[in-house]
């Protein structure tokens, strides 16, 4: 055993990279759920974003265009979910699961001729001066642009939800769609926009995996990250700040687990990998048991179908 060989600075730095795709997907899903919609198709949207981003980046040699098209691809796919659940009033759980199935199949077909190619490199930012600061430099200032973009997006969503009128309306729609409707808000349209935002974010998260993290296209490469994003939204009790915490916890457990192994510590891998899920359940129970903090609970209309009957 050689715990000294673990460099905590590098550990935190790689944790930030590991957490980025799930932060992106989770923040999108958080907005969707805040609007009262449960979209279980995050994995499908992520993998579609991953393939769209990869194809465009390879064809145009521009990672930026790749990320843009990944967001577009995720949003278009989510629109399918939006149309079905919002206009045709299908069940959200079943439609979301179908979306994952659909996205996995679609991405595999689209990506058939891109297996084994290399994506154009996304430059690291390496902010001059700042990245040379000891400790903080490598942790905070030497990542690729997407890491910062994800954090900015997170902060943006937090501010919009908390302070803006749009955020208020979004939350109203998620808490009580009938009341929001009675107040004259266009529930369906607002939800559709939220769903597309969620799709775009998931697409970005997927592209981060295929363009930066791995970077390559292979079928099924997101390997369950979308499901983890779903768990994180719940863990975060629908609060953007805690999404960050959750993503670092989930991402951190994996990174830490691998680091401990490399340092020669014999650890039961399976039990460690299930621990974030157990912690999520505990968080859920604490939240729901404490009635005075009921406001922290799930959006009241989550997963319920809305139909204006008059």
């Amino acid at each position, binding site marked *: 055993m050689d715990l000294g060989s673990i460099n905590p600075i590098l550990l935190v730095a790689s944790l930030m990279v590991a957490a980025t795709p799930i932060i992106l997907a989770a923040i999108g899903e958080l907005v969707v759920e805040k609007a009262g919609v449960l979209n279980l198709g995050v994995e499908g949207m992520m993998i579609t974003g991953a393939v769209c981003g990869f194809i465009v980046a390879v064809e145009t040699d521009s990672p930026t265009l790749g990320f843009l098209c990944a967001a577009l691809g995720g949003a278009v796919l989510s629109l399918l979910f939006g149309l079905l659940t919002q206009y045709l009033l299908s069940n959200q759980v079943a439609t979301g699961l179908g979306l994952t199935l659909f996205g996995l199949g679609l991405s595999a077909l689209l990506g058939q001729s891109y297996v084994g190619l290399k994506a154009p490199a996304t430059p690291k930012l390496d902010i001059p001066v700042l990245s040379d600061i000891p400790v903080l430099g490598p942790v905070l200032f030497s990542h690729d642009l997407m890491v910062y973009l994800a954090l900015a997006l997170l902060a943006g969503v937090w501010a919009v939800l908390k302070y803006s009128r749009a955020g208020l309306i979004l939350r109203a729609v998620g808490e009580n769609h009938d009341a929001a409707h009675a107040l004259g808000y266009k529930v369906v349209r607002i939800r559709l926009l939220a769903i597309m935002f969620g799709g775009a974010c998931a697409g970005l998260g997927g592209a981060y995996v295929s363009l930066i993290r791995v970077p390559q296209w292979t079928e099924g490469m997101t390997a369950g990250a979308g*499901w983890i994003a779903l768990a994180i939204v719940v863990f975060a009790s629908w609060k953007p700040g805690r999404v960050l915490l959750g993503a670092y916890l989930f991402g951190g457990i994996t990174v830490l687990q691998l680091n401990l192994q490399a340092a020669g510590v014999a650890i039961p891998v399976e039990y460690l990998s299930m621990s974030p899920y157990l912690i999520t359940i505990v968080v859920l129970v604490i939240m*729901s048991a404490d009635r005075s903090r009921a406001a922290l609970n799930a959006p009241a209309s989550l*997963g319920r179908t809305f139909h204006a009957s008059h």
Partner: protein
Amino acid sequence: MLRLEKRPTPSRFWAAMTPVLAVLATMIAGGILFAILGKNPFEAIRIIFWDPLFHEQFAAYSRPQLLVKAGPLILIAIGLSLGFRAGIWNIGAEGQYIMGAICGAGAGLALYPSESFLIFPLMILAGALGGWAWAMIPAILKTRFGTNEILVSLMLVYVAENILASVSSGLLRNPEGRGFPGSRNLQQWDASANTEIIAGTGMHWGVAAGFIAVIFAYVLLNKHILGFQIRLTGESPRAARFAGVNPTRLILICLGLSGALAGLAGMFEVTGPAGQISIDFGSGYGFTAIIVAFLGRLHPVGILLAGLLMALTYIGGELAQLMLGLPSAAIQLFQGMLLFFLLAMDVLSNFRIRFGKTEVA
């Protein structure tokens, strides 16, 4: 302007017609997809929907296989549908399925190599209990603390998957398996083998259990007070409360039943078609069953048909790969389409489409 108007009661005509329309729409959209991929669309559609049932070379084998594939889906979906009807959302059937298989297999393997005829019944019991216990976690958390069961049951799927990985390379690993992960083959041990009840029909004990569950659910929903309570709670929770329905009891019963049935499905699968506990044992039946439950409109007979239809697309899809070289991704996409069309057309049975201006903007 198109407008939807809720029907007072779902239309029976459209409830029967929409699946047919959806399958036709999928055939057209899927045909276009297959044509784009350079395959003959008519041949592909024929292979998927017709050949598993009537192809002279394959049908004798694939017809019974339809039952084998549909059995666990139906068994799980029936359990889920009871809860779904009452507004209790167990989406962690995959976890209960895995835990049922682990407990069932574990109970049997503890007694290896005994040949007692009591082993198989004991394993059935252990399997059902395993699934039941796993479903009781979200049930108790919901009734005690009001915790959202959708999320807890989903989280528990991942916990179950990790337990599966752990036992298949540890506790239940086959000591004669040369170090490879995976348990002993339960199919090859007479005491635990889930055999066909009538040879050559595909009718193993799990399929039989599926059919029994369909009948049981039908009777329960139509003739029994509990079925009435389930339906009432789903339609109007407030009315149910006034009618004296105990919501705690209902949650425990619905989640418990769906967990036990999912556990049974896992146990029958591990002793029959799958044969052993392995890391890849969880094949997504628990999630597919949710789709089946909705395709079947949460109705026992509907679920029976939906399970068979789903099995048909799996087996037909395999044949299409084999005969036409269609990539498996195309089949996945095709199944996704079928699901979307069915869900989309469902609107017709619950709503009327009106033409004209909406009253309220």
